């Protein structure tokens, strides 16, 4: 799969550009301020699928949220589609960027249809158009319209909820989608299916996607490029192949795990088995 991907050339204006961005948080109760993001510069090209990999507390989620101003940077600049986000209205900015939350972030008191249609509704789209768009999106994320449309999120499985989350993020036709560990809590089969389905959507809709994950295997399988974060700093970025040449021990360690797993799996599973 990886070999089929064309190497993307960096266009003149990146979709998202971080330049020397820093962010600290109040440690609470007089403790020292916690450095979440420390002097990070990173660019995401149009049409690119970037995965940000790192452990918990590495600052990856903060970095993602800086892009749609869920958080504002202390220092440095964040540009989205060539525009400094500080100069934009945060509410409008968020309405044109899709966001998929860790556990779906679906509103439990709204039906699936209402959840998916929320951003178009906020944008003032007439309700008959929203209804049509909801049906279209349910088909896109491969959920049965009749079965799921009027359900409440609580009645869905984890995978179905995450599909609705993706549909909601895509509802207002964004060019950029930010995903915060979208598939982290799912069982492996669902996770795999959902990952593949999303990758296909990314390509079909010509999206620019930034996905956070702590799972290097997932990052390698889905992303064009990978950025590795550790303790607020960007350790390395590049295609999986480029990362293998990194001088950072942590990056090499992260890459070793999937490789070892795949070698062991290759040894354990017969090549022309039932699967």
């Amino acid at each position, binding site marked *: 799969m990886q070999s089929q991907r064309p190497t993307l050339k960096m266009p003149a204006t990146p979709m998202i550009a971080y330049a020397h961005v820093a962010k600290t948080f109040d440690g609470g109760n007089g403790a020292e301020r916690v450095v979440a993001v420390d002097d990070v510069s990173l660019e995401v090209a149009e049409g690119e699928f970037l995965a940000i990999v790192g452990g918990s507390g590495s600052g990856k989620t903060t970095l993602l949220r800086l892009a749609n101003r869920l958080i504002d940077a202390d220092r440095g600049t964040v540009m989205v589609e060539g525009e400094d986000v500080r100069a934009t209205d945060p509410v409008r900015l968020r309405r044109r960027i899709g966001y998929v939350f860790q556990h779906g972030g679906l*509103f439990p008191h709204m039906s699936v249809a209402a959840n998916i249609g*929320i951003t178009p509704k906020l944008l003032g789209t007439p309700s008959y158009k929203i209804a049509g768009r909801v049906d279209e999106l349910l088909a896109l994320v491969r959920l049965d319209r009749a079965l799921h449309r009027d359900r409440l999120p609580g009645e869905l499985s984890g995978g179905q909820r995450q599909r609705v989350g993706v549909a909601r993020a895509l509802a207002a036709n964004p060019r950029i989608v930010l995903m915060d560990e979208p598939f982290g809590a799912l069982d492996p089969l669902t996770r795999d299916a959902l990952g593949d389905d999303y990758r296909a959507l990314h390509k079909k809709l010509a999206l620019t996607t930034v996905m956070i994950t702590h799972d290097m295997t997932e990052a390698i399988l889905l992303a064009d490029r990978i950025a590795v974060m550790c303790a607020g700093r960007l350790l390395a970025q590049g295609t999986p192949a480029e990362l293998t040449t990194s001088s950072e021990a942590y990056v090499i360690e992260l890459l070793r795990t999937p490789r070892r797993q795949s070698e062991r799996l290759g040894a354990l599973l017969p090549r022309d088995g039932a699967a």
Partner: protein
Amino acid sequence: MSILTDPRWGEAAAHLPDYLGNHVRVSVTALALGLVVSLPLAIAARNHPLSRGALLGLASIVQTVPGLALLALFYPLLLALASLTVGWFGFGFSAFGFLPAVLALALYSMLPVLRNTITGLNGVDPSLVEAAQGVGMTPSQSLFSVELPLALPIIMAGIRTSAVWVIGTATLSTPIGQTSLGNYIFAGLQTQNWVFVLFGCFASAALALVVDQLLALIENGLRGRKRLRAAFGGAGIAALVAATLVPTMARSSSSYIVGAKTFAEQYVLSALIAERLRAAGLSATSREGLGSNVIFDALATNDIDVYVDYSGTLWANQFHHTDIRPREELLGELKTLLAKQHITLFGELGFENAYALVMPKARADKLGIRSIADLATRAPALSIAGDYEFFSRPEWAGLQKAYGLSFRTQRQMQPDFMYAAVASGEVDVIAGYTSDGLIKKYDLVVLDDPKHAMPPYDAIVLLAPKRAGDEKLQAALQPLLGSIGIDAMREANLRASGNDASSSPDAVARWLWEQIGKQ
């Protein structure tokens, strides 16, 4: 007579439209006002720990003030405010009844709403608030379409708690002049009319349950997106309010309002006055169960038109005099003092409701005691009982000084038990009230006070400033002056303390009028 066939149920039911209507009006208004203030405050303060703490602390303090005291405090507060607005803006408002009741109850309703709204909103999963932001909601869109709907069950629970509290506490607004279901309870407790007490309790409990269930219906409808249910609940409350507005609109506003304090004698006298006014072709309504501190101010500000007070009470409590004057002198002085406030001291009814030393007639005869002077020589071997305040009052100090009284023991007692205690010999002497019906019942005797050490407590009729020149009113009340003797009043009070149909204030007032006619 069976409890179910007691005609007092019918009498109680006849008052229901008036009492219930006023009760619903005052509690719904207070609740609405409380919500209008509490909800925005809670929303504004929810993310600021300091103002949140201050707000909840303040509301908690209000809650610890007993309901009756809170209501009573609002009356002088508004009275002062009303006199300020008259001075500054040239208009006043009535500080009596509805307004202080609504304000105090609204304040009382705030804590559950504030606390539950803040708790409910802060309990919303922060990841959902973030999701609301993430999909592009403004803070107010997030509040109204995500946070408030998710906090709704907790907020509604607070509103329902506060509705039940307010409806219950509203029964305490009777003493500040707001008619409510509390009128049954106050009147019933004072005249030992248990039918009224039960009726009042059941009616307010039923009202609280109905409103609670209507609110539950609204909550259920809002939560389950069942508009019909929410509409039914809303319509129910609207209907309740509308239904209670009808009787008031039909009532004439030009009628005379007769005030009564919170004891049986006052209920009887106000019923008598109201009856006399009606007999003279005037319309009259009673405003009963008013606190002693409220009733005088209510008269002075024309909120009530007429009531009966006692000379010694006004002298000591209203005008803060501690000296004891002879009867005529005190009345004359009082007349001048009242006239300064444009209040007319119309005249005395003919009896006194004073403190007096009382003992069984047989015992007094046996010991040869007729007056307090006689008692003084025997006192060191005798015991005395008084109500909770008597022994700390200036009357007692004056009495001791004048006669050199010194008893073997002195005890404090509930007034109702005092008379039985002296009748049974448990104590030898009590400090009773001269007009109490139990003096007659237990065959007790009031000892003479030859040195006039006890201040006079003549029952006097007071008229509001606006009734100063009202000849019709004065003509109607004239026959009452000087015509109610102490024996008649005692008998009337005894009748009123009975627990049967002929003991209602109206029935006793009719009996009393017959006695006056016989003279």
